[in-house]
């Protein structure tokens, strides 16, 4: 009995020793990995954004986001807008009359508002609640106008998934993680000319 007890004790302590050494080597390993990564890490958080210059307006932003409606919305960069009367992003192609009537509008959810400013300028606004991020207007605006309508991930709506479902399915590889302090990639903005 005594001997078995001793044995047990000895075994236990040996096991304890082995356990401790494993434990510390694991901690060391994690420390090493963490340290290595820390040299590259920035405290900056990364968020998903889509590069408008790569975007081909395939429509998957509207359908593939885990959120309904999508966190990708059409954003209007007013300072690029031509305030055109005949707006390719607003009107269906081959439209006959330039009115806000339903038969003339391109947007499937009627999310673009057209308001008269002064002859011959019109302001176009996006109603974010209605926009589903399909990019139909983006294509029209890019084809006929200055490309002021651009698809972007709206960060107040985006859940910033660890793996973005749209990024996975984006045919143009336009999605990437960008630092959260410069979270929009409008084209026409020189976002790299900083500091």
């Amino acid at each position, binding site marked *: 009995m005594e001997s078995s007890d001793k044995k047990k004790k000895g075994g236990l302590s040996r096991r304890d020793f082995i356990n401790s050494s494993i434990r510390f080597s694991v901690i060391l390993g994690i420390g090493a990995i963490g340290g290595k990564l820390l040299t590259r890490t920035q405290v900056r958080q990364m968020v998903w954004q889509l590069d408008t210059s790569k975007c081909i307006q395939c*429509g998957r932003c509207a359908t593939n986001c885990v959120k309904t409606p999508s966190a990708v919305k059409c954003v209007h960069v007013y300072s690029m807008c031509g305030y055109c009367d005949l707006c390719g992003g607003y009107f269906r192609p081959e439209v006959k009359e330039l009115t806000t009537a339903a038969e003339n509008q391109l947007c499937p959810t009627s999310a673009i508002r057209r308001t008269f400013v002064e002859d011959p300028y019109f302001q176009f606004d996006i109603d974010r609640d209605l926009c589903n991020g399909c990019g139909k207007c983006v294509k029209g605006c890019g084809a006929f106008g200055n490309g002021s309508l651009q698809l972007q991930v709206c960060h107040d709506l985006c859940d910033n998934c660890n793996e973005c479902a749209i990024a996975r399915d984006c045919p143009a590889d336009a999605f990437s993680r960008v630092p959260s302090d410069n979270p929009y990639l409008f084209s026409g903005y020189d976002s790299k000319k900083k500091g």
Partner: protein
Amino acid sequence: MKQKVIIWLSLILLLVVVAFMVKDFFYQPKSSNENPYEYKMDKLRHIDSSLITYIEVHQIKPDIEVLHGIVIDKSDNIYLAGKDRVMIYDFELNLKTSFKIGIEAKCIAVGDDSKIYLGVNDHVEVYDNIGTKLKSWSPINVKSVITSIALSEKYVYVADAGNRIVYQYDTEGTLQKEIGKKNPEKGIQGFIIPSPYFDLLIGREGELWVVNPGRHQLESYNEKGDLISSWNKTSMDVEGFCGCCNPSNIAMLSDGSFVTSEKAIERVKIHLPSGEFKCVVASPDKFVEGTHGIDLAVDSKDRIYVLDPEKKMVSIYVKKK
């Protein structure tokens, strides 16, 4: 017994879940290639071949880095201008002269005295036809973006897209007048130029034709700056102009018809002097999608020269027999 059934059912369900994940991962169906939101432009880009009455017969492929402007003088010499270079071809398309200019000329005009006027951002430079710089006019202002120059007998007209105005100079470069400023009393609506395409030409009677692209309109002025006439054609179809600003360039045939070029739906068309659509010279499939600033010129035989800045070449079109 019941317990056992539950266990087996649950386990099977669990394995089904795992199998589903594996299947979904490795054999994901090809993501749909249908875009329910597709914006279809094919219809607009397609032109009925019966409307195309011109045929491409020659091409000039100048050795130039960036090609911007083309003009043809009275004796049908062809002048091309672009980055750092002016190239002059004779009517048989042989290169006559080519000289360096050290600047990027955005537009070109040539006088009867063979003086070459180049528009460079905010000012005009004058060269003779062998490349000697004669004069550099003083810059207009910081906003200036010169997009076109036209020469009448007395005056030099300069289109400034930045200031949305046409300036009338004498041949020495002294400013005479501003043309096209908004003046509702005189019926002048003012130019709307959302992108840097703003073209001029001198008509058969010496009148000045100006494109007002934001209104899809062509306006003619006399040398006093009074509006003589105008026509506009807005349409997404082939008979008019569409988008935020078109036509981007114009030229005139000997019968007074207009040759127009457009961006967005890249095409070159002919409109009658009244503005009615007549026919198509070059259909969109002749250009790379997204080509901007297709400059035009017409020679004395009414051959149409279409400058394609994207492909860096000039195509010459003649009427089909």
